[in-house]
């Protein structure tokens, strides 16, 4: 484990333990707000799924399950690499932190790339809500709602991923060899954030992609 005496301690804290626990509580309180942020979207989904079950089933069938499952696997992989980055930080391994953060960034990049492909497919198929929406199906207007929620939710999720990637780049840069000693807490709270992003997708995936597969 990294030598505690070299880890920076902010002036307003008494000791490392207080700093560490306070930082963890702060991050969890922030994640609490993130839960409610996505909660609003899930509520909208719940309301409209309840109202228009057939339309949702039909619209969900237009999503690409292969790409969705692939992305889920990629994101889970990125959670693992992030957990390993946190582990490396606690063990004081600067190289490990940088390597595993880069791996996470690459995984995130793959996810976002696949998402971009999916979005472009939707655009070509006329499934983007708005002036060019073309999917009539049997339930017409109500399927547009599904796609509004699809783009809203996955878009918000992707935005959170982009922010996460930015933060990872910053943290990886700080952990580069020959830089001042960094606090493992930084990587740890980043890890909490990234796992949260994974959690959101764990619920988005079945609710968006797997609805009507059995019909």
């Amino acid at each position, binding site marked *: 484990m990294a030598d505690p005496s070299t880890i920076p301690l902010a002036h307003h804290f008494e000791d490392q333990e207080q700093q560490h626990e306070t930082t963890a509580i702060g991050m969890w309180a922030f994640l609490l707000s993130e839960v*409610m942020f996505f909660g609003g979207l899930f509520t*909208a989904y719940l309301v409209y799924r309840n109202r228009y079950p057939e339309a949702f089933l039909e619209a969900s069938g237009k999503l690409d399950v292969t790409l969705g499952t692939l992305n889920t696997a990629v994101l889970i992989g990125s959670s693992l690499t992030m957990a390993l980055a946190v582990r490396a930080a606690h063990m004081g391994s600067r190289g490990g932190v940088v390597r595993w953060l880069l791996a996470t960034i690459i995984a995130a990049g793959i996810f976002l790339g696949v998402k971009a492909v999916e979005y472009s497919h939707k655009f070509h198929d006329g499934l983007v809500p708005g002036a060019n929406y073309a999917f009539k199906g049997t339930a017409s*207007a109500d399927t547009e709602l599904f796609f509004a929620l699809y783009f809203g939710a996955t878009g918000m999720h992707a935005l959170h991923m982009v922010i996460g990637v930015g933060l990872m780049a910053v943290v990886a840069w700080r952990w580069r060899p020959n830089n001042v000693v960094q606090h493992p807490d930084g990587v740890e709270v980043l890890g909490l954030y990234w796992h949260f992003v994974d959690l959101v997708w764990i619920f988005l995936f079945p609710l968006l992609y797997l609805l009507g597969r059995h019909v």
Partner: protein
Amino acid sequence: MNPLTVTAVPKPKRNFWNHDFSVKSWLLTEDHKRIGILYLLSITLFFFLGGVMAVLIRLELLTPAGDLVQAETYNKLFTMHGVVMVFFFLLPSIPAVFGNFLLPLMLGARDLAFPKLNLLSWYIYMVGGVFTLFVVFKGGVDTGWTFYTPYSSTYANSHVIAAALGIFITGFSSILTGVNFIATIHKMRAPGLTWFRLPLFVWSHYATSLIMVLGTPVVAITIVLVALERLFRLGVFDPELGGDPLLFQHLFWFYSHPAVYIMILPGMGVISEIIACFSRKRIFGYRFVAFSSMAIAALGFLVWGHHMFTTGQSVFASLVFSLLTFLVAIPSAIKVFNWTATLYKGSISFSTPMLYALGFIGLFAIGGLTGLFLGCLGLDIHVHDTYFIVAHFHYVMVGGMVMAFLGAIHFWWPKMTGFMYSEFLAKIAAAIIFVGFNMTFFPQFVLGYLGMPRRYHVYPEEFQVLNVLSTAGASILGFGFLLPAFYLIYSLKAGRRAGPDPWQAKGLEWTVDSPPHPHNFETVPVVTEGAYEYGPEEVKRG
């Protein structure tokens, strides 16, 4: 020289004001006290901006005809008045100014848990404020501060997206402040400062922070959805696409009802501090008051549908929300009873802060009780969207919250600045504000009950007398609000210097210099007694 008026005036010690006068040291400060002052300046500006809009509204309502401004302009006025007052004054006020300034002092800490985050909160607030100012100067938004769909999402021609963006950004300021306070209160209490020895101000800010963190994100995503609907026709609230405008209201009020508790809880914390000090007594039923703050925070999330009784919500859901609304009144009532019991057999001194606290109790009681009327389905059908509602929320927000804010300023001004203001002028201002306030808003209860709808710039002739009365009151109220600006600023030049504890109050903040040293405490205090331990000698001296 009259020895009675001169207190020894040594050169001021090193404090958080005078250790560095550069602009950079202010704009890049991590000192919670300086950040509190920065917030004080910004929210005062927004308060006066919102006040100007109120003046124009009341001027228009002097006559039944719409002769001062056009209907569209009037819609923009009441919208911007609401947006500015709610999001840029009421919500941040006490937490951002007094919470920031006092929490570390009350806890015996050197700063908040995350000082840099604190500064970021202020900058985020300012950016949101700039967006809103932009909206004001570009012609305003006319949807009402409640942004109901489908008007806001589809039909409005005003700057809805910019306004939504301003509010969205400022919401983050609130969330980050809440995060900071939660972490600070949990982990940065001085040795011996257990939860039940905390000042009630701290309890109320803890409860407020929970609401900030849990509620604000929901309104954030909601206005994002409105913006997306305007930009990309995403259609979540658009009936043409199968959407339900009422879903907007559910998501909006899920936050905006608890938001009113974000506004009032810190004020209640202030009142506890003031009442204890100027009765020279412990707060009666300390634990009840502490837990009632938590109960208000929790129950406050269960009642939002009472804003939607007339808009198409199911009758069953309305009944459920009505019942829950009656429940949430109970913890507020508990506070009022306990404050009153504290006053009983206390050694009361009618200082300016105490005048504001007593005013709060009475006016909040009226506002709160009328809230119960509104929670009653049958009555609400009659008075919803009338001036009864307007009067109700101004009684709790202005008669309650703003009084608490003014009380806080007058109580902690000597601590923050090291100067005393003119008690004589302050008491006069308090009286003027009290009279002006009631004259403005009490007639509005009557107007609402008689059927005058809100958000209309024209009204039937029979309502003119009460409207003129209300506007007259507003001019008195406005004058009253201006007075503190003058005598408080004047005190910085010519006021008597205050020592560490001019009110002989209990609490860790009164053990440090006025103004405090940048690092608050020379040595970390160790706490051995509960809050408000006013002993018999204190009672005599008060």
